[in-house]
């Protein structure tokens, strides 16, 4: 049975170790990535929203416009 506990301790130590090493490396990698990106694209953050909007798929736009048009039509109709 002690074997079971031994196995558990080993699993816990290696597991917790892996989690920590992995996330610590991720901290460094993330910081490195952010500083690289911010160096080369300093103005990016402000323009980001527009990019998303422009890229939004044509079909999605069509659907949205249809809903909006209907909403507006209904709105006008109700306000008559």
């Amino acid at each position, binding site marked *: 049975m002690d074997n079971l506990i031994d196995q558990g301790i080993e*699993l816990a130590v290696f597991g917790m170790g892996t989690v920590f090493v*992995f996330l610590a490396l*991720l901290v460094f990698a993330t910081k490195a990535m952010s500083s690289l990106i911010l160096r080369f694209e300093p103005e990016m953050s402000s323009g980001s929203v527009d990019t998303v909007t422009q890229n939004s798929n044509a079909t999605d736009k069509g659907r949205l416009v249809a809903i909006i048009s209907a909403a507006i039509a209904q709105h006008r109709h109700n306000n008559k």
Partner: protein
Amino acid sequence: MSRLIELWQTTGIMQITLPQFSMIIIGLLLLYLAIKKGFEPLLLIPIGFGGILSNIPGVDIAVGDGILHQFYVMGLETGIFPLLIFMGVGAMTDFGPLLANPKTLLLGAAAQFGIFSTLLGALFLTDIGLFDFTVKQAAAIGIIGGADGPTAIYVAGILAPEILGAIAVAAYSYMALVPLIQPPIMRALTTQAEREISMTQLREVSQTEKIVFPLLLLILVAMLVPSAAPLLGMFCFGNLMKECGVVTRLSDTAQNALINIVTILLGLSVGSKLGADQFLVSSTLGILALGMVAFSIGTAAGVLMAKLMNVFSVQKINPLIGAAGVSAVPMAARVANKVGMEANPNNFLLMHAMGPNVAGVIGSAVAAGVLLQFAG
């Protein structure tokens, strides 16, 4: 007349066993908690209802050709349902707060201590003869401490499907109970001064950083913990679809129709594991108790890690946000915010707590990978 007796014997009244009856009551209780108390209703309503269906005598629903068993075979034995849900969760996750303050990733690491200490606890209870858990079962029980439903279900489905029902019920119930479980622990481990620490506003994060991050995470997983790649891969895929901004159609569907369909089917599948003969065993009590321990230790470890980081760092962090490292997104982050505002009404910790909160998702997926690799 003899046919009438035969008819009467096909009724549920004549066939039901006491354990089945008890499980139907438990199913109704889960529904009550979900509907009236707001306990994770998206999962606990399908699970609770599925649990009732699974205990109806005289008809195959959760076994054989029954529909719930078919859903189980289709989606849980294969791992497809939890992975698709994880993809959808990825498509709903905003890594912005984490990217603005990457060192909070360490809080998400610390909180996984709940997983491994619970694993040890389960083996200790076996050692002293109170329960009889295998290493695989202990690992699956530990993952409850990850406070992340799809991860727990995915791991349990592979390592210990026989206790999947109890694990899922424990995981979702305790996630719903986070506002009750965490605050006393958080208060006990922090001083008033620590709880009052206010943190500087997070910087804005660029879209490019948000696009590159899931890829960076994927590569790091591939290089270091490949066994976590199915989980984190699907998660990063969902997140990339959301952040890249060019596949809005797919991202919307992953966050809505697809995750909703899979949630219904996954909940019913999990419910199929609430059959009385599988669920009403003593080990279920052990699992429920250990799950609670897992959440508590995870919370404590997150808070203590934050305090430890403050020893070495100039820019102090409020240790309350460490508790959000267990995941339970976004409940644990809200709890951190609420306890923080009790100490200092002008102290808005919500966005700061979102960083460790999503870090906890990554952390428990990495832990899941290790468990699948070495206990699997």
